[in-house]
């Protein structure tokens, strides 16, 4: 194709998206659209998969059967989210194997929030309430994104997320209304997860690359800072309601803006964690890669069995 023809196709393509038409897997698309989507969707899938690890840590130690079945179901949902997203990503012509390889080699990123440790049971509450809460704010606009398979996967994901946040908040309510030690545990978890949750919504607009293109393709509808403000405004009253204190001395209602002012985010910490120097980056990758490698003989055996069964069937036909 000549450059002229490509320019033409690109213009038609952008116009389709502007008209709110969806792009499907076999449609022509600019190479940059494909690559950007593979990057964002796979990062998203990896985050769901790695995100199971910090919570998986507490399944066997959940304080009651009610909590245990809920946490188990939540973690299983996250596995499902990862799988919806991987399969949507594969429609763009990349194989599952390549995707895993990018995660395992460290080439692909996942959300940096999962590189923090889960040291007490209250962390299960804080994660559901704050981390899933922030994830929902990030994900809801994606239900209308331009790439059909991604949008459909996100509709499914979003339907399932609200239980995640509620089960987390319920844990926090119970602890906050419990013994002084339990309340302290809840407060401690909030103290540790608050700032990483704010960082999870991404770098400030001033430092965020590719926002404009992402807006056009509906990969993003609001800027990181807008999403962060939305998260803070909705979460602060929820903390107040259960008598917990947001660990930010500068947090103040701004009557004029109709929203909260908040303190400085430690972006150095964010970039450190993104670059691999968070408290659990190594541990997470070791757990993930280890599980993949230890499962190899199972995958091979299943494949060998399937092939044998197939041969048997073919013989019977003859």
């Amino acid at each position, binding site marked *: 194709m000549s450059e002229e023809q490509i320019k033409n196709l690109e213009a038609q393509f952008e116009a389709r998206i502007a008209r709110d038409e969806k792009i499907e897997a076999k449609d022509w698309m600019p190479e940059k659209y494909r690559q950007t989507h593979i990057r964002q969707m796979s990062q998203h899938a990896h985050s769901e998969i790695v995100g199971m690890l910090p919570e998986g840590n507490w399944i066997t130690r959940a304080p009651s059967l009610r909590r245990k079945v809920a946490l188990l179901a939540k973690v299983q949902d996250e596995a499902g989210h990862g*799988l919806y997203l991987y399969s949507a990503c594969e429609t763009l012509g990349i194989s*599952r194997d390549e995707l895993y390889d990018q995660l395992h080699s460290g080439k692909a990123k996942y959300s940096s929030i999962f590189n923090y440790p889960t040291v007490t049971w209250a962390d299960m509450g804080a994660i559901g309430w704050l981390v899933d809460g922030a994830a929902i704010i990030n994900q809801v606009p994606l239900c209308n994104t331009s790439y059909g398979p991604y949008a459909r996967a996100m509709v499914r994901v979003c339907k399932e997320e609200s239980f995640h946040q509620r089960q987390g908040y319920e844990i926090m309510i119970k602890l906050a209304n419990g013994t002084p030690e339990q309340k302290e545990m809840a407060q401690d978890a909030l103290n540790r997860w608050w700032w990483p949750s704010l960082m999870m919504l991404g770098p400030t607009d001033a430092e965020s690359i590719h926002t404009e293109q992402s807006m056009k393709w509906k990969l993003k509808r609001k800027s990181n800072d807008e999403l962060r403000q939305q998260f803070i405004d909705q979460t602060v009253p929820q903390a107040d309601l259960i008598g917990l204190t947001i660990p930010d001395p500068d947090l103040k209602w701004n009557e004029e803006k109709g929203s909260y002012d908040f303190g400085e985010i430690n972006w150095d910490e964010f970039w450190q964690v993104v670059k691999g120097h968070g408290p659990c980056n190594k541990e997470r990758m070791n757990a993930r890669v280890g599980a993949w490698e230890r499962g190899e003989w199972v995958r091979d055996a299943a*494949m060998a069995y399937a092939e044998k069964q197939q041969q048997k069937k073919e013989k019977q036909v003859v």
Partner: protein
Amino acid sequence: MATKNWPLWEVFVRSKNGLEHRHFGSLHAADAEMALENARDVYTRRNEGVSIWVVESKHITASNPEHNGELFEPAQDKVYRHPTFYDLPDEVKHM
């Protein structure tokens, strides 16, 4: 490195009797039986289905969107296939 990767399967789910199976997504599995089991866990954790079909993705033949013109445009000028094409007197109520 695994000797051979699990193939890709497309998953179709009937959400309740009376409705058709609808494409839900895809997954990897070693064989059809495993594909069904995995489809249950991945796509029907909340009673989303009463019946599942799986088919290995390589068996699906899809039309090419580049040929949409010759495939689908001929239907556009066949207005006589629609009831509104036909003139009836106003007195005719239910037709």
